[in-house]
């Protein structure tokens, strides 16, 4: 399901970067979001130390030892070409993190740019930009990504582009709402009086103020990014073989599912855990940003 599309119009406001530490402490106090943070920590750990954690080369085939069940030599068994599933899962964390990171790096600036410019100038600029945003918002992200990938050709990088193209609008809306509240602030007016250019004001005064809430919104978005990427991989439109992308692993493992359950089970659990972790953290963040909650605890 597509939270972005459904939640449009709801925004969150955070006063500057200072409370981030406080938010983190709040998250750690709750068992659910603490679990989420733990899983995300593991994911990052796995990606960083993949070469040491993996027991085999994730691409090394062993046609004599195909579809071996989980056991001593291969903790999670081997796939149809005799590749070690544990090692592929571990290396797959890098792909997952790459997708998340790249989408975030692309979506953040685009969303910020569109949102702050629309909010700062207002009027016709605002109307046009928000109308464009609304058009992109009127699709569930997977379907629009599917169409984009079909147009661009199936590959991991195109999947990332397609996901980015579909996930900037909520960020833009948020940034715009934030900008509207800061636009009238004294220091912005002061900067304007001193003759600072519009570009400078947006970059130096408005963007930093929007940053914290945009960062949090990006985190909330990550579970969706993971599921969309896995869905694309599953349909054969995302990462291409032999990349150990989890969705693609499920797609090929599906052909051996009845006899070799481990081919689909482990990548599936990996996707579920990571996406659940981001959702739990996101849910915790939502509570953390609700002032009533923060103060009461």
């Amino acid at each position, binding site marked *: 399901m597509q939270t972005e599309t*459904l939640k449009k119009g709801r925004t969150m406001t955070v006063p500057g970067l200072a409370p981030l530490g406080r938010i983190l402490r709040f998250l750690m106090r709750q068992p*659910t979001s603490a679990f989420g943070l733990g899983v995300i920590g593991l994911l990052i750990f796995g990606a960083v130390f993949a070469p040491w954690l993996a027991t085999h080369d994730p691409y090394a085939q062993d046609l004599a030892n195909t579809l071996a069940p989980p056991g001593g030599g291969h903790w999670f068994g081997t796939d149809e070409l005799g590749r070690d599933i544990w090692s592929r899962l571990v290396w797959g964390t890098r792909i997952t993190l790459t997708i998340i990171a790249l989408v975030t790096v692309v979506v953040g600036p685009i969303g910020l740019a569109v949102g702050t410019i629309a909010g700062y100038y207002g009027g016709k600029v605002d109307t046009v930009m928000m109308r464009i945003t609304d058009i992109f918002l*009127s*699709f569930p992200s997977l379907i629009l990504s599917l169409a984009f990938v*079909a147009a661009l050709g199936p590959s991991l990088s195109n999947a990332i582009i397609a996901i980015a193209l579909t996930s900037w609008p909520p960020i833009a809306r948020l940034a715009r709402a934030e900008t509207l509240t800061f636009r009238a602030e004294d220091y912005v007016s002061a900067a304007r009086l001193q003759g600072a250019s519009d570009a400078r004001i947006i970059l130096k005064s408005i963007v930093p103020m929007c940053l914290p809430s945009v960062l949090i919104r990006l985190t909330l978005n990550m579970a969706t990014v993971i599921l969309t990427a896995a869905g694309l991989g599953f*349909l054969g439109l995302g990462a291409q073989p032999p990349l150990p992308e989890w969705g693609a692993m*499920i797609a090929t493992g599906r052909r051996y599912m009845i006899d070799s359950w481990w081919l689909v089970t482990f990548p599936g659990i990996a996707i579920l855990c990571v996406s659940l972790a981001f959702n739990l953290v996101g849910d915790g963040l939502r509570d953390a940003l609700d002032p009533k909650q923060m103060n009461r605890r």
Partner: protein
Amino acid sequence: MLTHSRTRGFARQVGTIAVTLVGLLILTFVIGRLMPADPVRAIVGEEATQDTYMQVYQELGLDRPLPVQFLMYLRDVVTGDFGTSIRTGQPVIHDIAAVMPATLELATLAILIGATLGITMGVIAAVKKDRWPDQLIRVISLAGHSMPIFWTGMIALLIFYAWLGWVGGGGRIDDYFIGLVPEVTHFILIDAALAGEWEVFWSALNHMILPASLLGYSSSAYITRMTRSFMLDQINQEYVTTARVKGLSVRQTIWRHAFLNIRVQLVTIVALAYGALLEGAVLIETVFSWPGFGQYLTSNLMIGDMNAVMTCVLLVGVIFIALNLLSDVLYRVFDPRTR
């Protein structure tokens, strides 16, 4: 009676929708032009001569500037011409009409399950806020939202069809029932019931229950969260306290007062969740060999059937806009404060 300001608001909304629709068309047009498929080759075939090729190329207007091509596309869409599918050789709109009922039937059953599940969990979570049922429901509903539905579908199919034999396998009904019931509404459950073919009806329900439950479960997270937050707003209000003081039981207070007050909001939420189901349907239809819209879209994506993909994407956009509009309208019509 409509007031003047209301009419104006309505007019503005219509204008907004018109602009959004044109934007949608631009977007689908761009996607269509980007697609690597050669629409001329699809029409004339492999063996055609260069002359025939160029003739069709010009007939399709591909030699004209892009804005002109877009206007031609706009004209076609307005006159209801969405082109012909390469795969089936049929008008795309005819194809979509043939596959849509399967998806709608699945999605409708799914939303019934999802709403029931979501509203129940949401109310309980609100009442037991911050206690263990709340935490448990949070995890359960978020898990539904976090599962890769294609994977859960495969595992569920393996367990409930292959091992336990409780439900039907892929497809809408057992294959040998196909084409035995007159198609009136194209919803198999309704058609079978109308024809009195209960065997077909059970077979269809048997095939539908698993994908619908999974879709419903995945959509329940959003409904749960919204229900919970609406209920919390209500519970914190004074009248609830008053009602309690008057001696009404907890259950009565919640269901008679608090729940009745949020039903309008819930309807709009469910309408939006219904649209979001389409996304899950794309993936789950692949797993359950469900001959619906999702499978039509993905199989045409794979072969680069441009007209079919453009129309599918356009349709999804229109459905989303329509559902957003519907939820707005519902809200205005039923909400006591705006009446």
